[in-house]
């Protein structure tokens, strides 16, 4: 079997096994999925029993897993919970794109996700873009001028940046730019520190202002990580023989660095970036919590705190699916970019 196909088959098996593991974990939790339902009011046992039948939780776990996977429109279910199977089921299962209903809001899980995902994509997209725009020049310059003042400063800062917990950095930025520094015109805080906008009508400056602190908080760790990574891979490439050849044949230094060195040094960075991309789906949980950003990270946090299992399961399995897919793609792209790598 060709390499790509074999990897694809492995990936599918892995997603399947993970779905099994996640489902088991969530359902083996004490009290089961309904444990969170009695938070606001005490439920009578017969009420709980009715709910269990309505949600299909009285069936054995393997059957429940099957229903979660492929739906229950092929079988009779107990819609009113009176103990009699009275109508065909309406669920299509996750394989047909039906992730069920949120226990918390009683809306379809996919609606919940699709209302949060754009906010997270905006936040993480800008964060990643800013991170790369800063990290790539810093990484190149650090490597080209190894041991210069710039390199030493950049290396020290990125070392510190990697040790800086995101949640603390966010709080420090809020203290500095929201509490301490004031806007000289209005006397209010210099930068907003919560939500996505203040003005009801769309205003670009308002939106951008709300992005600054969350993006700065989220991007610093990535900048530190990517710039260190690129510096290391540039340094490795710079000492290769073909660099000497390029110089020997009289190429200007700029071309040597940007055409010969950078192209090769970027390959590992591209792979690394591809592997990091799927984490976008899960959102930046700390940033979203600190800055009240209505994204996926906060949705997951709410689902975990309130035992909203359909939402938890959906985010987990979709995230894991993306992660596996991207590591598959990264391998294949790597093989395509670097002709020395041949799998079979």
């Amino acid at each position, binding site marked *: 079997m060709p390499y790509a196909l074999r990897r694809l088959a492995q990936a599918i098996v892995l997603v399947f096994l993970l779905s099994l593991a996640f489902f088991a974990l969530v359902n083996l939790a004490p009290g089961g999925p309904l444990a969170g339902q009695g938070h606001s009011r005490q439920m009578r046992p017969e009420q709980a029993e009715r709910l269990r039948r309505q949600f299909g939780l009285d069936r054995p776990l393997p059957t429940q897993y099957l229903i979660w996977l492929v739906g229950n429109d092929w079988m009779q279910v107990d819609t009113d919970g009176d103990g009699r199977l009275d109508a065909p089921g309406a669920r299509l299962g996750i394989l047909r794109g039906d992730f069920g209903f949120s226990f918390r809001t009683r809306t379809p899980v996919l609606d919940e996700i699709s209302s949060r995902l754009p906010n997270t994509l905006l936040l993480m997209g800008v964060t990643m873009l800013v991170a790369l725009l800063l990290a790539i020049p810093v990484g190149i310059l650090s490597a080209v001028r190894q041991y210069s003042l710039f390199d030493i400063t950049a290396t020290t800062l990125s*070392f510190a940046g990697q040790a800086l917990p995101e949640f603390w950095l966010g709080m420090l930025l809020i203290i500095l730019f929201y509490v301490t520094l004031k806007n000289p015109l209005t006397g209010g805080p210099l930068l907003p520190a919560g939500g996505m906008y203040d003005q009801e009508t769309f205003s670009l400056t308002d939106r951008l202002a709300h992005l600054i602190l969350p993006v700065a908080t989220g991007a610093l760790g990535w900048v530190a990580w990517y710039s260190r990574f690129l510096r290391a891979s540039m340094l490795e490439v710079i000492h290769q023989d073909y660099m000497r050849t390029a110089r020997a044949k009289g190429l200007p230094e700029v071309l040597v660095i940007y055409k010969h060195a950078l192209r090769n040094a970027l390959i590992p960075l591209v792979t690394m970036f591809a592997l990091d991309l799927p984490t976008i789906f*899960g959102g930046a949980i700390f940033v979203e919590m600190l800055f009240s950003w209505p994204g996926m990270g906060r949705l997951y946090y709410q689902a975990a705190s309130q035992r909203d299992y359909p939402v938890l399961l959906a985010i987990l399995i979709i995230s894991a699916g993306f992660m596996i897919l991207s590591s598959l793609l990264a391998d294949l792209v790597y093989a395509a970019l670097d002709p020395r790598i041949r799998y079979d």
Partner: protein
Amino acid sequence: MQLSIPEFDTISSLAAQNNIWRRFRRHPGAVFGALLLTLLIAAILLAPLSPYNPEASSPAEAYQAPSLAHPMGTDALGRDQLTRLLYGGRVSMTVGLMVVIITVCIGVTVGALAGYFGGALDNILMRITDAALTLPTYLVLILLASILRELSTSFFKENNLLTIALVIGLLSWMTSARLTRALFLTLRDQTYVQAARSLGASNRRIILTHILPNSLGPLIVEATLELGYAIIEESGLSFLGFGIQPPTPSWGNLLSNAQAHFTDHPWLAIFPGLLIFITIISVNYIGDGLRDAYDPHKVLEQVGEVF
């Protein structure tokens, strides 16, 4: 019969250790990190010397800004924050060390079996490792911690630290496993291993007394860096409320408690985070220094001198 010359072994390994220590001392970051971490650990161990009780509240002294009496201010209940942070440090460090032990135990076992025996066992163990590496770490951490938090079994309630350490450890053994496997792959065909085998040494003996001791260097580096990750992950989980549960203080949940009032009382957020930051950066510098110390080629390349 064991064919070895003990004197020679001891001398050469002493010399090697001496070299490592010498190279470690020459790494300014590592020395700085080691000093800082030693100071921090000493302070944490001496926490009971503080004149304040970490639990007893004194409402009259609530929300005091840092002063001579309270160098890091007081919290909502008037408790001295420095004292609370020192006790919290004990918890965070303990969890960190537990995670390192768990991680190294799982990682070395998996890696050693895979690297030494190879074949189908290697294949299965490495597929499991790959699979674990593709998990969305924080999401699964939160899932596991939130499920364990709900368990009514008193074991998890009374052993909150161990539970959190297990959860984090279960999700971070993969790098150690891969590293150990790589080390075992290169070492298992060395002549001294072949010699031991031809003398009839059992696999167990070869793994434990011949290969493992020679893999220690890189494993120590890995364990050091792991301590940093573990402390960040514990404080992250506690920050979200899924980690160490109050009233037990940890750096993460102290920072989490600060969330509601830190805009009015910034010291409540600044100091817990500062301690986490100092710990992580020290640990990372130590790990960096150890890596250079154990890898003479890299030092040679960096310092440009010949030993």
